[in-house]
């Protein structure tokens, strides 16, 4: 979804304003929204991808005007309705007309604090060797020009841009389908380095790069670079090689048997 939530590279949002000695929450209702949303997610009434999708579906002007927990509240209410856990009348009255349907609601232990993992982050899946990576660190790739109406985690600023695979982070659930009840489609996620010049144009002077996590489905192998696009300098590659190798060693241990 090309939504207003996709903010990377946008202008006009003013300076970043910081609050000295900021509290964790600014009001009681923020606390309650946070805890209710987390509990529902922990009990798998919905998954984290659905939650993000619900936030992104806020009307754009309201999304931009809302605070963080106003967005959570919107998602909480709209997902409870979507999942049939509550009715619009119940939301208004604050009273249950019927008990919640059993689907998707695990037992309540009352213990608090022990919210289960979000299911997108299943740890076992990440190191499952039956999912083969399509790319390896060092491979040159291009982010696909995707403009889906559905939820996606490929931001607009990266689409059509060339980068280099830095890390294979293992296997993760695919948000584009998982956010819509269309399956987990597990696949490798790679951290791809994009140079600032590639993202923002040849005039961009800053020595910077963006490291973006890309699901396998977001990427294609880069064709031979046309002359117009500057190749990533080998000096840059050499510089990055050391820390990459270091951290990769860890992944390597967990994922032994995979080919680089």
């Amino acid at each position, binding site marked *: 979804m090309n939504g207003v939530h996709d*903010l*990377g*590279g946008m202008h006009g949002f003013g300076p*970043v304003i*910081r*609050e000295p000695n*900021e509290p*964790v*929450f600014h009001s009681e*209702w923020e*606390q*309650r929204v*946070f*805890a*209710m949303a987390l*509990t*529902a997610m922990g009990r798998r009434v919905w998954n984290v991808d659905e939650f993000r999708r619900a936030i992104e579906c806020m009307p754009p002007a*309201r999304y931009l005007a809302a*605070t*963080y927990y106003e967005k959570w*509240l919107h998602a909480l*209410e709209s997902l*409870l309705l979507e999942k049939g856990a*509550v009715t619009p009348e119940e*939301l208004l*009255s*604050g*009273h*249950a007309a019927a008990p*919640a349907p059993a689907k998707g609601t695990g037992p*309540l*232990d*009352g*213990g*608090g*604090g022990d*919210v289960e993992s*979000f299911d997108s982050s299943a*740890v076992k899946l990440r190191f499952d060797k039956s999912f083969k990576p399509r790319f390896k660190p060092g491979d040159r790739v291009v982010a696909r020009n995707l403009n889906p109406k559905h939820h996606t*985690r*490929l*931001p607009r*600023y990266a689409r059509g841009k060339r980068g280099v695979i830095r*890390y294979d*982070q293992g296997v*993760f659930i695919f948000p584009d389908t998982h956010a819509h009840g269309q399956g987990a489609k597990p696949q490798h996620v790679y951290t791809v*380095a994009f140079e*600032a010049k590639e993202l*923002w144009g040849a005039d961009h002077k*800053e*020595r*910077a790069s*963006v*490291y973006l*996590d890309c*699901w396998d489905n977001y990427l294609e192998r880069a064709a031979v670079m046309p002359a117009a696009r500057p190749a990533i300098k080998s000096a840059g590659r050499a*510089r990055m090689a050391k*820390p990459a190798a270091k*951290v990769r060693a*860890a992944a390597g241990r967990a994922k032994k048997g995979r080919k680089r």
Partner: protein
Amino acid sequence: MSEEHDHHNAPPSEPAQRVKALEQLLVEKGLVNSQALDELIDTYERRIGPRNGARVIARAWTDPEYRKRLFENAAKAIEELGFPPGPQGEHMMVVENTPRTHNMVVCTLCSCYPWSVLGLPPVWYKSTAYRARAVSDPRGLLSEFGVDVGGKEIRVWDSSSEMRYLVMPERPAGSESLSEDELAELVTRDSMIGTGLPKSAARRARETNRAAK
């Protein structure tokens, strides 16, 4: 006034009221338990916060074996210190600042943040301004934060996946004689997001003296 206006901007009722009704409803439904919510809130207000991350960084600065384990499997090494992964902390990677590279973390699409080591994010991290500018103008943004990284290459980590990133700042010069606990006091939240640098040992000494008076 036109539909353009009306269509998207019907103002919702006050959040405080809506939330009160909502909790009451969900309790009646058996979906939440108010006491469990209290405990969850307490956890994120008191037990989980940037002091967790500071302890991790201080340990890594002082213990080469721990440092190695942290780079090998960050979530596991963090758990060693008594900080369970929990949500938004299961898939961690520590990225190290060096004399040539400065790392900085953002989530342009929402506000992903490593809760287990930093707690819940501050408002500025979740703001449209930070999310918009971090990827295209990191140096300008750092200078607004009072941070000058000189000619270093900046790497901006955009947390688009379930991976969460923690920046390991460079250990400040002059901190050689400090203990692990004292080092942890140098490690600010912002230095672990990459929008700040650790306090200097001298500043910590001044602050300690002032507090003692």
